């Protein structure tokens, strides 16, 4: 045993400090895991599943080095449960999975929404339904991320397009989870999870960590303000946490309609009110363009390639990339689509985000779906642009 007088937090800080400014050629999965560490993640509960297993592997290697905790559970039901339990015991906690595991987690994602538990769920999307094409990418879980758990709710989901973004957005996921006291879904896809890019780790001093807002004894942890402070286990406040409808003090009250109405409307409102603040959209609008391409996740890369090729050939094409998927950045997208006649939406599914786009924009929305486990090529999307422009 190495003897040290340093506190565990100091060791963690020294370790992360030593990584600051270093460059890496790593996969998206690895970058998401390292981003979580920089965000202050202290608990990871998971279960192996392709294409998300590398996140668990990195966490099992790194978390013990910074006095964090890694547990591999018997299934995804247990993983998300333990992640929520750990959050109430003071952890910044995370799990990572793919489609089948994400389906299993849905009930407890709703529990995290109802109990206002900050936590991060990474879903490295793969081709479904069911076992589908186990190792191959897809973007078929966008609507599941929004509506997979039962009942009225709002959710936050972010989608990265580069490995650097896997790192950076993982940090943002943790911060949004803490700021809004809610589960946040990191909606990656198998392509971004496994692709390797150059990634630079920032110096730990540059990383902003949104601190957990804690209440004091007697304070309501489940109401009284839009985002109430948290009372953690061991604080001596005798907090009562339940997924049943509850009063502001956490006590179960499933019979009073006004209690349920007030609670669920507040849970929806706290995210809905802040949607402009949560929205991240990359907009590259070209003056006079009549055609636009909107893409997210891995698909955004060939889509941008196609747009740049079309522009090089003299066409005017706009490019829009929502990074925040939920709450849907509709007004930002509508503004970017102003003046367009048509918007092409390539996705690795048979139609999900395009329908959400249709609710906000005035122009024609052309869905260009591709399934089968292969991402779109730039040539395919460029051909679609040319067809639309004709």
């Amino acid at each position, binding site marked *: 045993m190495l003897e040290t007088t340093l506190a565990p937090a100091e060791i963690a800080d020294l370790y992360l400090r030593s990584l600051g400014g270093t460059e890496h050629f790593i996969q998206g999965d690895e970058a998401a895991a390292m981003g979580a560490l920089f965000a202050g993640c*202290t*608990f990871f*509960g998971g279960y192996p599943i392709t294409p998300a297993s590398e996140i668990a592997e990195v966490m099992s290697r790194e978390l013990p080095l910074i006095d964090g*905790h890694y*547990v591999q*559970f*018997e*299934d995804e*039901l*247990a*993983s998300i*449960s*333990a*992640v*929520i*339990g*750990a*959050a*109430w*015991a*003071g*952890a910044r*906690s995370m799990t990572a999975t793919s489609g089948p595991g994400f389906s299993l987690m849905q*009930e*407890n994602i709703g*529990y995290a929404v109802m109990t206002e538990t900050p936590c991060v769920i990474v879903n490295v999307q793969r081709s479904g339904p069911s076992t589908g094409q186990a190792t191959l990418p897809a973007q078929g879980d966008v609507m599941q991320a929004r509506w997979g758990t039962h009942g009225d709710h709002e959710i936050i989901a972010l989608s990265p397009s580069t490995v650097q973004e896997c790192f950076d957005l993982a940090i943002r996921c943790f911060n949004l989870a803490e700021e809004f006291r809610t589960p946040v879904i990191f909606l990656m896809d198998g392509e971004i999870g496994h692709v390797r890019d150059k990634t630079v780790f920032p110096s730990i001093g540059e990383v902003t960590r949104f601190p957990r807002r804690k209440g004091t004894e007697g304070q309501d942890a489940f109401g009284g303000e839009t985002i109430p402070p948290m009372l953690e*286990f*061991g*604080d*001596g*406040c*005798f*907090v*009562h*946490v*339940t*997924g*049943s409808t509850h009063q502001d003090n956490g*006590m*179960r009250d499933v019979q009073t309609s006004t209690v349920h109405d007030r609670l669920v409307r507040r849970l929806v409102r706290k995210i809905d009110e802040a949607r402009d603040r949560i929205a991240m959209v990359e907009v590259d609008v070209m003056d006079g363009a009549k055609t636009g391409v909107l893409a997210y996740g891995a698909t955004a890369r060939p889509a941008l390639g196609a747009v740049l090729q079309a522009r090089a050939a003299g066409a005017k094409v706009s490019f829009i990339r929502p990074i925040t998927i939920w709450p849907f950045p509709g007004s930002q997208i509508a503004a970017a689509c102003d003046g367009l006649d048509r918007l092409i939406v390539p996705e690795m599914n048979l139609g999900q985000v395009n329908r959400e786009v249709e609710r906000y924009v005035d122009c024609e929305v052309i869905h260009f779906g591709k399934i089968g486990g292969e991402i779109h090529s730039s040539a395919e999307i460029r051909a679609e642009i040319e067809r639309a422009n004709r």
Partner: protein
Amino acid sequence: MSIRDLSDPEYFDEVAEANAEERSMDGLRPTYGTVDPLSGLMDPAESVSSRPEHHRLLKYLRREILPTTFCTGCGGGTVLNTFTNAIDEMRIDPKEMVCVTGIGCSSWIPSPYFLCDTLHTTHGRAIAFACGVKVMKPDMKVIIIAGDGDLAGIGGNHLIHAARRNIDITVFLVNNFIYGMTGGQVSPTTPFGIRTTTTPYANVEHPMRIADLVAAAGGSYVARWTTFHAFQLMESMQYAIRKKGFSFIEVMSQCPVSFGKSAGMKDPVSNLKYLRDNSIHVDGTKGMSEEELEGKFVVGRLVERNQ
């Protein structure tokens, strides 16, 4: 009743008035949080100073939501009583405890009634939530109280793996042989041949012997007691809480309302006699065959390991 009748506002007014009259009768009964649970039990003639105002264990309960919602004769009250006594005798500060529960009548024993940090989770997942809590708070006592349907039915996998992992948590599984809260459906522990609301022609499956299953899966302490054996149960609870590693007690309990109506034992006393008469201490089972033990509850300490 036609849909036209049901949509008639005058008809609704009549029903509403009738209901209002019924509710005024209800006003005689205590409602949550407005009545001292012990009022009426004390003799008003007796001087207040001559006796403590409240029961000595009331400080361990969330008083504002008493009385409990348990049916008359439910074993849940006995478990809450023995558990509270166990904590009191051990001088454990409730601020050092987290009680984790699932869904069902038995889960209501500590959440919301016991005054400590309480995590009332989804159906079957109490042990999994508790693992996350214990990993982050190793110095706190993490105790799970939930039922047979919750821990052995829908959540059976977590029970097996927590025992295998030997994580330092304590599980009190209250086995009342039935899904009580949902109205008396067959559970993994319902005895063979019993009619329930979902086995109207009798249960054709054999019950799970949960404590034996946990003993085989691992764990440091495994015991079985019944609500009839209140004092043995309390001592066993203390032992389980003190024991390092995964500790487990299967508490055979009575449900006169949901199980009793199925088994023909509607009164609590015959339920308790059933538990007493069918219990056999583990020390007395040497040489007994499987057939002889059929339908018996082997009580006492089944396994103790130091891993």
